[in-house]
């Protein structure tokens, strides 16, 4: 199970970083979403992986899972959800305003690309 969870975090992070480096609004937003999934799973594992045990400690409990990372993940999910919504709205505004969905300042390159398209 450790291998499964660890590789899931790794793959999600790698995919997230790749998408963020695409520098176009939609892939970047999906990429940040992937990264937040990865970090949520990572936070979850920070309390150690325990299966089938309650997150409650009583005096006679022999096994329990750490409840604090679950609270942290919940907070992180709420925040990343809200942030993603904000970035979608702002990115839509920027796209509609600029007629361009590139994230970086590449006005020069963009003009060059347009000229290239014109020639084709």
């Amino acid at each position, binding site marked *: 199970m450790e291998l499964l969870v660890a590789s899931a975090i790794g793959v999600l992070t790698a995919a997230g970083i790749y998408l963020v480096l695409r520098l176009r609004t939609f892939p970047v937003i999906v990429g940040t979403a992937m990264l937040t999934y990865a*970090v949520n799973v990572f*936070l979850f*594992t*920070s309390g150690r992986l325990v299966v089938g045990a309650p997150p409650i400690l009583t005096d006679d409990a022999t096994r329990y899972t750490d409840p604090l990372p679950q609270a*942290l993940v919940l907070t992180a999910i709420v925040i990343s959800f809200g942030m993603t919504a904000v*970035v979608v709205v*702002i990115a839509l505004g920027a796209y509609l305003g600029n007629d361009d969905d590139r994230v970086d300042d590449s006005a020069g390159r963009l003009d060059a690309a347009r000229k290239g398209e014109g020639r084709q």
Partner: protein
Amino acid sequence: MMHWVSLPVILPAMLAATMILVARYDETVQRTFSVAGTVALLAVALGLFRGASDGTVTIYQLGDWQAPFGIVLVADRLSTLMVLLTAVLALFVLMHAIGTGWDRRGRHFHALFQFQLMGIMGAFLTGDVFNLFVFFEVLLIASYGLMIHGGGARRTKAGVQYVLFNLLGSTLFLFALGAIYAETGTLNMADLAERVAQIDPGNSAGIRTAAVLLLIVFAVKAAIAPVHFWLPASYSEAPGPVAALFAIMTKVGAYAIIRVYTLIFPPELEITRGLLDLWLMPLALVGLVVGMVGVLGARRLDRLVAFSVIGSMGMLTVAVSLFTEEGITAALYYVVHSTLATAALFLVVDLVQTHRGNIRGELRAAQPIPATGIVAALFFAAAIAMTGLPPLSGFVGKLLILDAAWDGPLAVWAWAVILGTSLIAVVGFSRAGSVVFWKAHEARAAADDDPATEMDNVDSTLDLVGGRGQPALALVSIGGLIALLALHTVFAGPVMRTLSATSAQLFAPQPYISTVLETEGKEIVKGHSDEGDDGGDAASAAEGETGEGESQ
């Protein structure tokens, strides 16, 4: 006294919510609420500052749960100093925003402003690293709204970059926090300080990784090279008063570095030795060079000031990266100075740009702006402060940093870069100032001959700011900031005594730790409370660590 500590967070939060619910259509009521709230905040901040000035550490336990199980707000010398600085800055920025009418160019300016203050205050006061993350998010999400306030295609584009960069920073922050929790089983700063000190140096890979990740996160916030790229576009495209308020946001990153790397990972700690002292100083010097060369190369006034922010953050980080008492004292003096100077510059630039029509901040001669004499005088005063020329406090701050760097590693490099970049900055600022303010009279003479160029300067924004005069309130706010800089210079002696006491408190954290951990909260009923779990966390985490040790 205890409950007062929570007020800087609660007051803006309640005020912002009230403004949205009750007064969302009434700008006058919003302005009144906002100003009254900020004045009250200033009073509270002064009270807290006074309370902490004798070295007492006051804590507020949220929900009366004892630390490390509950979240605590801690008011010591450093955090109250930063809270006071924020409150002072906020009042002047708010005056400017109202005076120039910026707050009417979009909706919910005042509510977002108060939410931003709430986040900043919380970040300064909290004693829990996860809570620090939450307050970072609060201040960021408010800043996203403020950053694109007033709209415009270029501004929203810069806003997207700003939001995405910070989103990635937040994700990295969470990775760092997860690693810290996995290694230590706690997120309370005081508790972390104790537990990190007990970690076996042979088994410290996880916590070392976390320490570096955390530094990268704070470096992003503080715009230290090489993660400063987000700053110039965001700050120069943001509305003037918002950029001025953002002057404190980079300092939140600097504050977090100072707090975490004196309390949790202090310089004498064995396991993190060689992680920070080796890299931070050279990077700070690179940032200083990048910033000041940017000042020289900038073609627009707002970008010029934004690059000077990077430069001043580099200068600040040079002082911080020494991690000595003198270094931190110098850094704190510079924090106060550079916050006020940056804010003053952004506010002046805003006045200039509003009245130059489509030319905005471009560094070329155009028709003189209204009240050009006063605005030019304010610009030069702020520029003198920013570049660190006598007689204003930038000079004192730079001297202190040079003096502190003398005994440190790379002293020659630090001196050479600081002095060299100062010269570059002086050239950059004086060139910009002379083009914008002095060449303007030549441009007018030319325009009188050729009436066609007149059209270039006419802009609809003129109506918004009340025609040809400069709003008095805006001038007063900039003048006030510069007067504070002058006071910061004149009373450098008493200020330095306070700041060196602050620095001494940071390097003797035992009272802080014991106050946080030993203050009792409400009574815990055994076997039927959340507390037991957290106690168990520590045990399970400790088990986990030993388990790891075996597997390695």
